[in-house]
């Protein structure tokens, strides 16, 4: 709805849409998320009571006494156990010891499985998806497209520009982690910051675009970076914030007793403690940023179009706009490959390393 209004360029109606969304948000927050949030605190892994005890709201007693919710809580919310990677199944220890040749077999098999998991599966998924949506002829068309018309050069240049935009946006939004620390250490900040952030985070990024034109004039480069930030920053904030909330309070007490400086507290306690959340947040934020390019790099207001010079999102938008299906598929496939490669080669490794080293153990 808002997007339609915004395409028409009607600022008053956008303001009304903001207001309506705000009311809906406040209602869901008060009646659903707040009680749920307070209730979920029960699952925090903690041995010493924190100085500020929380008195649950009235609905939390409802959660406590309702049996189906208890069962749900028991089986669904299992604290302490990190989320298992999707493809990795946990098997119980074998009751017997393996002979060496059996071990060799298993190792070679696991290598094969790894090979499938890493290389074959993504390719298959892409092929199957393409096969469903297009036909073989279309695929050949796309391959031809890449080589015949210097398309590859254009796509690589565009992707580089887009990646640069995402990198700049990431660098700008990274300091939000300090607010996440403030939100767990300072109850005043928490009380005021969280509702404001909840409010801002709930709006789809395109809603802010008209106001960005007011702020940045017609500088599309700045606007596109701002749009990426407004859509992605919350992933970083909420993930770091939630991993900091799991920080056992006796560790906070230790750094207080040791009288560490603010910088020492940050490097020794808060930064390592938030790293798993920060990496998850970055993965989600940057993954989301690639999608946000479609909105950020090519903006239509009323009948006029504002666009960056190079960008994958821009190509996608233009291809969709003029109905060039080959170009659309070609650039889409290009983007998918970039995102999958980034995930496989970089994020997954970083994530595994960080979750291994920086988890609490009892």
């Amino acid at each position, binding site marked *: 709805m808002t997007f339609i209004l915004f395409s028409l360029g009607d600022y008053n109606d956008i303001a009304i849409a903001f207001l309506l969304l705000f009311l809906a948000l406040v209602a869901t927050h008060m009646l659903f998320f707040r009680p749920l949030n307070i209730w979920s605190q029960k699952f925090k892994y903690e041995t010493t009571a924190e100085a500020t*005890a929380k008195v649950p709201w009235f609905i939390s007693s409802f959660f406590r006494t309702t049996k189906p919710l208890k069962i749900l809580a028991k089986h669904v919310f299992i604290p302490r156990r990190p989320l298992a990677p999707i493809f990795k199944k946990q098997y119980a220890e074998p009751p017997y010891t393996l002979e060496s040749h059996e071990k060799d077999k298993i190792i070679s098999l696991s290598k094969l499985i790894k090979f499938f998991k890493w290389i074959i599966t993504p390719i298959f998924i892409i092929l199957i998806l393409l096969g469903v949506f297009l036909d073989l002829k279309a695929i050949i068309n796309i391959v031809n497209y890449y080589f015949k018309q210097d398309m590859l050069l254009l796509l690589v240049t565009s992707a580089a520009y887009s990646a640069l935009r995402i990198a700049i946006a990431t660098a700008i939004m990274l300091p939000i982690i300090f607010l996440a620390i403030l939100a767990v250490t300072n109850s005043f900040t928490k009380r005021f910051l969280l509702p404001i952030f909840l409010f801002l985070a709930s709006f789809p990024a395109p809603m802010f675009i008209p106001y960005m034109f007011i702020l940045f004039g017609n500088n599309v480069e700045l606007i596109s970076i701002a749009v990426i930030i407004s859509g992605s920053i919350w992933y970083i904030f909420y993930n770091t914030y939630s991993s900091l909330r799991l920080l056992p309070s006796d560790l906070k*007490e230790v750094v207080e007793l040791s009288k560490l400086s603010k910088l020492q507290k940050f490097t020794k306690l808060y930064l390592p403690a938030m790293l798993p959340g920060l990496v998850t947040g970055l993965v989600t934020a940057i993954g989301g940023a690639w999608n946000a390019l479609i909105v950020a790099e090519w903006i239509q207001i009323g009948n006029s179009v504002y666009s960056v010079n190079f960008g994958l999102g821009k190509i996608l938008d233009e291809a969709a706009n003029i109905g060039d299906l080959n170009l659309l598929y070609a650039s889409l496939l290009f983007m998918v490959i970039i995102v999958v490669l980034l995930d496989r080669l970089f994020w997954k490794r970083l994530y595994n390393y960080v979750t291994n080293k920086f988890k609490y153990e009892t």
Partner: protein
Amino acid sequence: MSLEGIKEESHHPILILKDISFIITNKQSKFEIIHKINMEVNEKEFIAITGPSGCGKSTLLRIIAGLIKPTNGEILLEGKPLNGPTEKITMVFQQFALLPWLTALENVELSALRLIPDKEKRKEKAMKLLEIVGLAGFEYFYPKELSGGMRQRVAIARALMPDPEIILMDEPFSNLDQPTASNLRYEILNILRSSPTLKAIIMVSHNIEEIVELADRVIILSKRPAEVVKEIYIDIPHPRSVRLPKFSSYVDMIYGYLG
């Protein structure tokens, strides 16, 4: 110097708690956790605090540590009022509270990062303390690679690092298995006694046998709000054997006051 039989000697209260109260206020209600506790800790004294579960023992310990501000009352350390944490008072936690991403050595160094800015000196001292607590050779192990008893040893070395005058212990042995705990108890008593600066130990515990084994004086608190029910001097020479009739009579006496 020995910790026992201090009460007959001259009184040197190094820590005084004056009318300490702690009240949690919420929108709906007020909870009084601690009600007007007065306490004196003398030099070279090992004090145990016990009481029913949830009576506010740990809160009292955190008030002494300066982590929680009392609602009323004041704490004097060597005559000077205490505001917030100080290097002169350190703490040993029930769950060890080691930072999992730091090695044993780095964890020990942590509590003197500010006090000893010189890297080499700090490392040297931390190494020495790890040796004292019996962890020579484990300096570069991470907490998850150490057993529960070893982790608590690291935590004790960390608590000794700033040369404190008072060490607070919040159920330091309750998270360890029986043999480990009983081995560690006397060893720790000796380690702490050998510290040149340490003047007193305050331990919160539920384990009455442990209290009678270690403490010079036990302070028994009531249910919430916590008040001092009784102070008992434990007058048995060290090492104290559980088999002594005196030992079990002290245990029974304390249980009697706990109700």
